[in-house]
């Protein structure tokens, strides 16, 4: 063997196989190396820096609820290497390692390889995840490495940029706080996007009160601001959850949800702007927090399925209680269930928001891909929701005639091209007048539109280079 670097790598591989063999059953070995060219990772300053990356990786496993049972760090001939023994299955551990690589400020510089006790590595491809992207250009990293696409000085510039960013960052870094802040930003943005989209027949937009005499766009802005701190609270509840049955999350979520409601009513002077949304987005934020702790990226459908797990059986329980209540003390949703058997948003949530995942979200994404503006894609998604969901706001105010009209009009305008055609846009404005006059307000659909936008923002499909600058 001529090349000492190659020899060192082979030696490390043998060491990993030995260590893996010695693993307690059900645990995994994580090997950390620096993801940069050898001349860079062998520099003196990177010895200390790599130790910091190792520490950060260890902390990240701890925060996710997998405290490493053993650790080791040393400087090999091929550069710094770290080892962690984590008592969880290799797939679960790999997901957490990927989350570190993707979301820790130092992650792009780290390679977290995971091996099971039989000496098999678990890679992204084994989790059906796309390959790791290049630090500089976002192409699959292995292609750039093999072709030596980027000159060393450019890689060094990128690496230094990342490191300086870490040095200046607020510490300690917390995945839970980062995740819940990101989830909360998506919820907050979704709420405001929904309010701003127009024309929304019968609903409040920046230029119209729709069918509402008691609120306008500014009421929604106030309400949204009052709720901004709460999305993170729900997300953190989800992240902190450690049990097997997510339904156990519901009682604490409801308690915080009531506090959020109180904050909203205080901000709006007693007007209900977002009570339904607090329920829907609240459980989705918690579900997202729960999934984020596991590390791997998740799809809108997985998020909704997790949310469904939280509220499993909630309709039955609530409505059984409603049957025993005085009629006067029933909420609109409860009254509709008692009278018509309509399960409304509870039913939608228990089924995992099928109106959103199967209908509104594909439409929103499709329209955006076609080049429609966010506003127009949102209005079209709202029309789709008119046709597929049971809007209890409409049922409560205008009965089943209103609900039938909503479905019929939604389908008609979509057939006319929705926001894509002048005819569709004219029909939307006419419908806005009609709904405003007849006081028909599809607020349930509006909430589901916000849910649609939330999922669209939360689960990006296409991600660019790791260091966009």
């Amino acid at each position, binding site marked *: 063997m001529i090349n000492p670097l190659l020899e060192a790598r082979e030696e490390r591989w043998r060491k990993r196989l030995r260590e893996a063999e010695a693993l307690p059953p059900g645990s995994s070995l994580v090997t950390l*190396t620096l993801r940069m060219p050898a001349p860079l990772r062998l520099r003196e300053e990177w010895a200390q820096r790599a130790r910091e990356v190792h520490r950060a990786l260890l902390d990240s496993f701890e925060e996710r609820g997998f405290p490493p049972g053993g650790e080791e760090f040393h400087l090999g001939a091929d550069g710094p290497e770290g080892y962690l023994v984590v008592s969880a299955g290799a797939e679960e551990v790999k997901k957490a390692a990927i989350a570190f690589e993707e979301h820790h400020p130092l992650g792009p510089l780290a390679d977290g390889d995971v091996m099971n006790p039989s000496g098999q590595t678990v890679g992204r491809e084994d989790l059906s995840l796309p390959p790791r992207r290049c630090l500089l250009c976002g192409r699959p990293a292995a292609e750039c490495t093999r072709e030596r696409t980027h000159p060393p000085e450019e890689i060094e510039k990128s690496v230094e940029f990342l490191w300086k960013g870490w040095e200046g960052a607020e510490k300690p870094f917390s995945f839970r706080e980062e995740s819940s802040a990101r989830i909360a930003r998506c919820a907050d943005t979704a709420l405001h996007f929904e309010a701003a989209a127009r024309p929304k027949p019968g609903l409040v937009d920046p230029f119209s009160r729709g069918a509402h005499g008691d609120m306008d766009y500014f009421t929604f802005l106030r309400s949204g601001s009052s709720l901004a701190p709460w999305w993170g609270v729900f997300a953190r509840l989800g992240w902190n959850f450690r049990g097997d049955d997510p339904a156990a999350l519901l009682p604490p979520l409801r308690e915080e949800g009531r506090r959020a409601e109180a904050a909203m009513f205080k901000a709006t002077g007693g007007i209900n702007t977002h009570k339904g949304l607090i329920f829907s987005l609240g459980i989705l934020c918690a579900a997202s927090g729960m999934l984020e702790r596991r590390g791997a990226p998740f799809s809108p459908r997985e998020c909704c399925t997790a949310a469904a797990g939280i509220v499993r059986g909630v309709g039955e329980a609530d409505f059984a209680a409603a049957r025993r209540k005085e009629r006067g003390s029933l909420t609109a949703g409860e009254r509709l269930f008692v009278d018509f058997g309509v399960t409304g948003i509870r039913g939608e949530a228990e089924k995992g928001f099928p109106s959103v995942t199967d209908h509104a979200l594909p439409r929103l994404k499709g329209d955006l891909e076609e080049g429609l503006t966010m506003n127009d894609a949102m209005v079209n998604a709202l029309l789709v929701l008119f046709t597929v969901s049971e809007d209890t706001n409409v049922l409560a105010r205008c009965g089943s005639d209103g609900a039938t009209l909503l479905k019929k009009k939604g389908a008609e305008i979509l057939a006319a091209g929705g926001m894509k055609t002048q005819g569709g846009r004219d029909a939307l404005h006419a419908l806005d007048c009609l709904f405003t006059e007849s006081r028909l307000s599809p607020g349930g659909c509006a909430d589901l539109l916000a849910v649609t936008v939330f999922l669209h923002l939360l689960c990006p499909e296409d991600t660019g280079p790791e260091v966009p600058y």
Partner: protein
Amino acid sequence: MKALRSSVAGSLESSDVLVSVSPRDDGNIEISVESIVFRQFGPRIRSVAEEAAAASGIEGATVAVNDRGALECTLRARLETAFERATEAR
């Protein structure tokens, strides 16, 4: 030169390649290639492996190349080592 024993060289770490050689009686060289960049470099990796096998003078071996995005120089070095190890007298 006949392959005398099974050998391995390299690793399954990122940017490396694991080359496994095992002897076969029919005197042929059979090469299999797995790679995370197979789509772009599969044929190239195979031809490098064929060249290296020919240059080593090895006869009668199954060569399995499992590539994790190695540089071509790494690939060559790993192949060379694996053939050396397979033909070394004990």
